[in-house]
């Protein structure tokens, strides 16, 4: 078996006195789409943010393509923080897409996508913009390159955010509820871009409420509840019967909410 793209081992995360993740073990396979689902407050976004090192684990380790992220196992089994340059190098393999897009409002779409190429990687402006255009084309927004975020719809902003992450050629893409702050009619364009990315063989981890997307596109689904990983498996294993009672409850609420929207 090949090495997992992300390997989470015994991850514990506390905010102050509150433990929100109680020892998570999870492998994200290469070249597949994995979905994290669960009720709000279950810790799925925190888990994803730990994988991006936007939150630092209180205990446990995370490996990106076999390399420790942020902390490595120390002599007494206590995690030790790695030097900043090492953290940066491992992190550069990860791209992140946020629920709130987080596009920089003072830069155009092209500016957002080319920014890190220019300031971090020292790529010449013309080349950086050329490479940024390739990514904008990929998400279908080449003709919007000169627009500022405030001139784009939510769906377009999120597609620019995806292009921004892709421009740095990450090996893994993390999506934190990428469609949750979009109007329902705009989710499709973002999900389509994600589907195309999956078809290209990108390793993706998606926190989502889109159960339909999870069932159709994901090869692996992980169900979190109350800071614990209750089950992982293929969509057939997770959604097929018999189901875990908590998952049943979660799906019921989800379907109720869906039904309520139709009424």
């Amino acid at each position: 078996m090949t090495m997992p793209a992300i390997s989470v081992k015994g991850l514990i995360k506390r905010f102050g006195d509150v433990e929100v993740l109680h020892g998570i073990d999870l492998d994200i396979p290469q070249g597949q789409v994995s979905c994290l689902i669960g009720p709000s407050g279950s810790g799925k976004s925190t888990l994803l943010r730990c994988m991006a090192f936007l939150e630092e684990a209180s205990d446990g380790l995370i490996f990106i393509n076999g390399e420790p992220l942020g902390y490595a196992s120390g002599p007494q089994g206590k995690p030790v923080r790695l030097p900043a340059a090492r953290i940066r190098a491992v992190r550069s393999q990860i791209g992140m897409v946020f629920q709130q897009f987080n596009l920089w409002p003072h830069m155009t779409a092209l500016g957002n996508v080319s920014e890190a190429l220019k300031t971090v990687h020292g790529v010449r402006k013309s080349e950086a913009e050329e490479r940024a255009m390739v990514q904008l084309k990929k998400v279908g927004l080449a003709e919007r390159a000169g627009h500022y975020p405030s001139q784009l719809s939510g769906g377009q902003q999120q597609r620019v955010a995806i292009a921004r992450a892709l421009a740095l050629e990450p090996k893994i893409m993390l999506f934190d509820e990428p469609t949750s702050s979009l109007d329902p009619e705009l989710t499709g364009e973002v999900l389509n871009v994600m589907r195309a990315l999956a078809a290209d063989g990108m390793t993706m981890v998606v926190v989502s409420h889109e159960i339909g997307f999870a069932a159709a596109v994901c090869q692996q689904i992980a169900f979190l509840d109350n800071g614990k990983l209750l089950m992982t498996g293929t969509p057939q294993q997770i959604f097929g019967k018999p189901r875990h009672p908590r998952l049943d409850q979660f799906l019921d609420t989800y379907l109720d909410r869906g039904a309520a929207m139709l009424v």
Partner: protein
Amino acid sequence: MSWKLFELLVQASFYTVLISFISITIGLVIGTAVSAASLSPNRALSISGRTFVSFFRGVPLLVQLLLIYNLLPALGLNVPSVVAAITGLSLCTAAYQAENLRGGFQSVPRGLLEAADMAGLSAFQQFRRIKAPIALRLALPSLVNEAIMILKASSLVSVVGIVELTRMAQDLAASTYRPIELFSAAGLLYLIINWLIASGGSVFERSFRWGRP
């Protein structure tokens, strides 16, 4: 009122603009440092920053001006009174600008910096490329407002003997016995200058629209 008098007022108003402009510029530099200090994780720095802001916003500018005007010679610094006046105005506006900038920096959404973090920008690059431009944009309207406040407040430097617009109007009113005309004319000049600052400010703001209508 004769044209001659009005001309004298216009000349004096250049002095008002000059003193205000110098004070605002110095105040912006000090204010940036003070806002950085009050936001610093270092407790001593942040307390001194906040105390500076609280003191200079808590004491009437007139009292500050009188204090500095008399304190500098008492400390053996025999500087022209215009230096004392500019020092007082600068320190006062620095406190207000520091507070505006602090607000601007604190209102930069955290997610924008997380995105920069994920893109690999260093702390300094994040400050230079993301944090500073957005904070400045957010603080811009209050900075323009502050410029207008200082222009009006500069009338108080007349009490330490600087012949700017207010003092000129006062002197001319005393010698011609025409206070209504002279003070009205001075007020009109203040209005015009403030209107110019406000329009200049909104033109400047429009160049930072970033696509918003």
